[in-house]
């Protein structure tokens, strides 16, 4: 049992609205919106948290109040007209049925959006100044714009109330329109909306006053804001305290949802959504300071990944509600597990940022380590028991194999899990050796604890042979033997070593190292950082347009920051074509992919990253004896039906994860979950 748990399990009443506990999820934009509406997928995702015991779930991050703040192109929610109200009603019913409260975030993005989409309307802000992240230059709002947007906020608030939502907040954080007015880094107006802080606060005050008027005053309305913009020309902490105090004093807000930083450029954005390189709750001091100045409840989110930290934040009086948004993406049932004394069963967010990184490239939010999140309509968070108990043999205890063993054991099957290494985790153990990526080890740690708890017969240090597998007389064999580094295609590739060799310590290079990457993931970037920290002179070369091209927006800036700090030479748009030895050194031949110009490097080591190739020896050995010739019925897999060989005499053979094809952790887990949930 965690310390101070009782502090989390106390109700909080805001204006007659009683929230059953102090744990919440802040509004975010998982990309589940459809036609600008929160439809079934979006609703089920939040209903799962309600089932899991959360007190308050807030949805619809950056839900738009006006048509010049487009929502639909990013699968977000538009509250700009009444057609959304029935969806809100259905949403509220679903969440309320499980005892939680539900609210939405309303905003106008101002300059933090695009003009070249949906309605092709110009973007707006307090003044004309480009936002680096969106690369948008807005026009300065005139009085008509201000009147129209204020009214739009009011109309949107009315729609929330009519939709049965328990409340709403406006976003005045992450550089949205209200805080664009506040921040001197954007607002250079000379009228009554610019200049002094009092003037800069005016627009937000008008917005909230109009919303109050439209909702009758008894409706819960809060505000998300920064506690310190942390930029030279932005809002200081003192400015933020002054704003919070003034808005609270005027009775405009029923709660304040305080975060740290802002998001106008790549690095600021990454800092405002701290990944695993940050300590937990890095900005807790900001809501704590504001709580001392105002008498409305304070909410806070920002890398509160574990209940113990959340409980401490509430028990020590820093905040009234602790938001564990990404923590709920990893485990929507975490409050229920706390209440049931099963806090050991909580799948803790590792801070990989996979969920949020996907949405900034137009994808849907998915959890690196929980394949059921966001797929509630098809994937169960609680695995139901199978009607017939079977014997399942899983080979390989990396993420795919562990998940296959876990889900099969939850189904009530008898499971044997072979692993040739003395520890579980597979490639994650290698990835986790790279400096701040260490937190990835939480993924196999949880899976290991679950398979142990569910009685899986785990045979570590045992490389399964065909005979070993058949001796178990299995009904199902799942091969999750993972992959081995792809050596690549360069001429002279035998002179190169892999990133695995570096991270596992098999090779300990000194001197100058050329690291060539054709994956664009964390692998090469984190290995480059690892090498540089060990004292090597590193050049990171990639075929891609930029370093770590595939890494998302909350992680890539951290990689780049570290590589810049360590003096790693970054060379994109360049292909490694040949390696050959000269004396006791190596020559790497590079080709600029734009100009075809060739150049050479004289270095001590070449390290390459080409991903993995499946390890399929055991699979091929077993294929002939299996009832399905090792085939997976893809239609059944996608439709959520049992594989058609299920129940036939003999054993069916499947492969999952990188043993099927090298991809990522989420893919490995999803392979196993969707196969095994129907076994």
């Amino acid at each position, binding site marked *: 049992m965690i310390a101070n748990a009782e502090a989390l399990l106390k109700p909080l009443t805001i204006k007659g609205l*009683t929230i059953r506990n102090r744990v919440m999820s802040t509004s975010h934009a998982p990309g589940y919106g459809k036609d600008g509406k929160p439809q079934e997928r979006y609703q089920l995702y939040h209903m799962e948290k309600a089932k899991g015991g959360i007190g308050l779930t807030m949805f619809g991050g950056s839900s738009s109040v006006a048509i010049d703040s487009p929502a639909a192109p990013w699968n977000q929610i538009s509250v700009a007209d009444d057609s959304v109200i029935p969806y809100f009603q259905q949403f509220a019913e679903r969440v309320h049925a499980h005892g939680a409260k539900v609210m939405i975030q309303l905003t106008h993005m101002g300059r933090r959006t695009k003009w070249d989409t949906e309605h092709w309307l110009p973007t707006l802000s307090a003044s004309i100044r480009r936002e680096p992240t969106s690369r948008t230059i807005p026009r300065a709002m005139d009085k008509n714009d201000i009147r129209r947007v204020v009214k739009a906020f009011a109309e949107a608030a009315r729609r929330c109330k009519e939709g049965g939502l328990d409340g709403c907040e406006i976003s005045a954080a992450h550089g949205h329109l209200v805080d664009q007015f506040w921040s001197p880094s954007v607002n250079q107006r000379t009228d009554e909306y610019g200049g002094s802080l009092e003037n800069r606060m005016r627009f937000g005050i008008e917005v909230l006053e109009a919303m109050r008027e439209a909702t009758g005053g008894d409706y819960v309305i809060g505000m998300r804001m920064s506690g310190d913009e942390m930029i030279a020309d932005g809002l200081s902490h003192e400015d933020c305290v002054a704003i919070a105090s003034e808005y609270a004093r005027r009775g405009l807000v029923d709660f304040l949802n305080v975060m740290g930083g802002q998001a106008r450029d790549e690095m600021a954005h990454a800092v405002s959504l701290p990944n695993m390189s940050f300590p937990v709750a890095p900005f807790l001091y900001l809501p704590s300071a504001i709580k001392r100045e105002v008498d409305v409840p304070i909410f806070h989110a920002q890398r509160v990944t574990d209940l113990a930290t959340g409980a401490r934040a509430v028990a020590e009086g820093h905040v009234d509600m602790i938001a564990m948004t990404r923590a709920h993406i990893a485990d929507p049932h975490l409050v229920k597990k706390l*209440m049931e004394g099963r806090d050991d069963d909580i799948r803790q967010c590792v801070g990989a940022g996979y969920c949020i990184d996907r949405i900034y490239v137009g994808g849907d939010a998915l959890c690196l380590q929980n394949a059921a999140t966001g797929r509630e309509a098809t994937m169960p968070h609680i695995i139901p028991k199978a009607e017939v108990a079977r014997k399942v043999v899983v080979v390989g205890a990396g993420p795919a194999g562990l998940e296959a063993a876990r889900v099969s054991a939850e189904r009530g099957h008898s499971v044997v899990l072979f692993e040739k290494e003395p520890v579980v985790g597979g490639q994650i153990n290698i990835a986790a050796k790279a400096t701040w990526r260490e937190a990835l080890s939480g993924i196999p740690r949880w899976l290991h604890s679950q398979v142990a708890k569910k009685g899986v017969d785990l045979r570590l240090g045992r490389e399964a042979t065909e005979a070993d597998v058949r001796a178990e007389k299995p009904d199902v064999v799942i091969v999750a033997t993972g992959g081995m580094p792809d050596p690549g295609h360069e001429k002279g590739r035998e002179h190169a070593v892999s990133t695995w060799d570096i991270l596992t310590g098999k090779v300990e290079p000194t001197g100058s190292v050329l690291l060539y990457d054709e994956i664009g993931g964390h692998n090469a970037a984190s290995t480059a950082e690892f090498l540089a920290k060990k004292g090597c002179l590193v050049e990171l070369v990639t075929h891609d347009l930029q370093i770590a091209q595939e890494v998302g927006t909350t992680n890539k800036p951290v990689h780049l920051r570290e590589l810049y700090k360590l003096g790693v030479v970054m060379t994109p748009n360049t292909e490694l074509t040949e390696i050959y030895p000269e004396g006791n050194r190596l020559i790497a031949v590079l080709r600029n992919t734009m100009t075809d110009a060739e150049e050479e490097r004289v270095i001590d080591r070449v390290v390459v990253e080409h991903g993995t190739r499946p390890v399929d020896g055991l699979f091929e050995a077993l294929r002939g004896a299996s009832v399905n010739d090792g085939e997976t019925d893809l239609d059944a897999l996608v439709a959520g039906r049992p594989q058609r060989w299920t129940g036939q005499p003999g054993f069916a053979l499947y492969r999952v994860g990188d043993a099927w094809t090298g991809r990522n952790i989420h893919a490995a887990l999803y392979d196993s979950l969707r196969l095994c949930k129907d076994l």
Partner: protein
Amino acid sequence: MTDTALALALLVLAMAVVAGALAARRARLWRAGRAARVDWLDGLAALPKRYLVDVHHVVGRDPYAARMHALAAGGLLAGSALALAGLVPLLGNARLYWWIVALAFAAALAGGFMVGRRRLPVKPARLSGGRFQRLPLLLAAYAAGGFLVALDASLGGALRPFAFVGLALAAVGGIGLARQLDRGPMRHAFAGAAHLVAHPRPDRFEGKPATALAPLDLDAPRLGVATPADFTFNRLIGFDACIQCGRCETACPAFAAGQPLNPKRLIQDLAAAIQPNATNAAYAGSPYPNARPVAGIGGPDKPLVGTGAMIHPDTLWSCTTCRACVEECPMMIEHVDAIVDLRRFQTLELGALPVKAAPPLMELRYADEPGGRPLGARTDFAAGLTLPLMAAKGEADVLLWLGEGAYELRYGRTLRALITLLQKAGVDFAVLGAEERDCGDLARRLGDEATFQRLARDNIATLARYRFSRILTADPHALHALRNEYRAFGGAYEVVHHSAFLDELVAAGRLPVGALGGARVTYHDPCYLGRYNGEVDAPRRLLDRLGLERLEMERSGRRSMCCGGGGGAPVSDIEGERRIPDIRMGQASATGAAIVAVACPQCSAMLEGVTGARPDVADIAELVLMAVEAAPAAARAETLA
């Protein structure tokens, strides 16, 4: 009648005179005690039943001891009385009569041998040595002697030389026995009889619950017991009744945990202390485990507790008030009453509590709650559930008393399960919410009678504002206070424990339950439910309805072992060698059960605190909820079949 038979009769007479004198001397010491209202006539009339039924009910749990006592005591009394009656010429001259006398002494001899066999060659630890170890010899000598004399008389003097030897033996044994009357084992005979007549809790012989502590007059010049003279005289008799059989010591959880409490030794210290210039030197049983040093001296007006007295304070605070000693005592001694009387003086007059026990009492005084938490936070555990408040409803069929466990995270789960069940069954219930104060159990057991009485009166005043037919609680401590102890302050309620209530609901079909798949479960009886309130059947009946395989621990029902959570022991926290809950959990594990079913927040907390591999702890309400939730699935399975 032979001359030796005549001499035997006169010996018995002499023994009676010696015994009478010693008994009178001892009885004079009892007069130091305070007056108590005793219905002597009723007591005397009830004596045979109290002895033959109530005492023998306890003695009979050890069949060897029961036979031993029947033979030794019966033979001794019958032989002596018959020998004395031989002075009547008509009887004394009948040879057949002496056959009967010889038979009685033969029975006593057999009893004497059994006493010896039990103690020799190795004395079990629970039995006392010293004078007790000489008892079989004296008994055997007297009985053998009497037998020889009577046998000779029955044969008309044909065994005259043996009769002389017999007479000598009888004289040595008989006078020896008689001299034991004030301080030796034989004291239990007359003090025990007197105790049965003048028992401080006569109701316990009438099948009534007689476990409520007696209210303390808070205006009395001295609160609680400081010296032997502060006890009422009939409690002093009770201490003298102890036969040092050690059954209490075997049952005592604190003793088992190596804490410095041995109920037998405690009673002996109390009994020894009533003499002027008393010492504890004569005691020859097992000591207090890890005994803290004390002077071991006292007197009727000398303090009982303290390092310079008879009893170390740690001994007093080791008690969990579980009543296992009382339950096991064949002499019907009320150990727990004595301990609480002593605690009352320590707490109310001296403020001499264990350091960690003082803060909860302070909080109770100021906040009506031992953790100092706001009363309104008592219902925090139920946030998200609809919890009807009495203040809003005014009346309800059932008033749900939440108790202290409501503040605790683990136990909140139990209460949520119970509330969910009440809702599913459509029970009309309500809680007091912020109006519920602590029931006062902790204060009372820790000797803070003033706080208990205030809490009781305040709670009674609150309850008086509402209409309800029954109080339901999952906390046996609250149940005991509300059902049995509030009565003395004008609060008479029908109080039902959740195990009995849920049993009613399931039996009436208001809670359809599915089977829990034969999981192996063992039920741990809460002391305040089983021993204090005699409720051992309903929880078992209920568990049996859930499709569980129920296994019994070696100690169960009224003879169950405490979890260590009662009597303020968790806050007194007296150091021992082991933890009581670890011992109890060991007994649960030994049954092979996967689940220990509990029915009390204290038991739940104590047993959940046991580390390492062990059965899961689940309250009965949680198990019922699991079974109720399993019900539709089971029904579905039937449909499919």
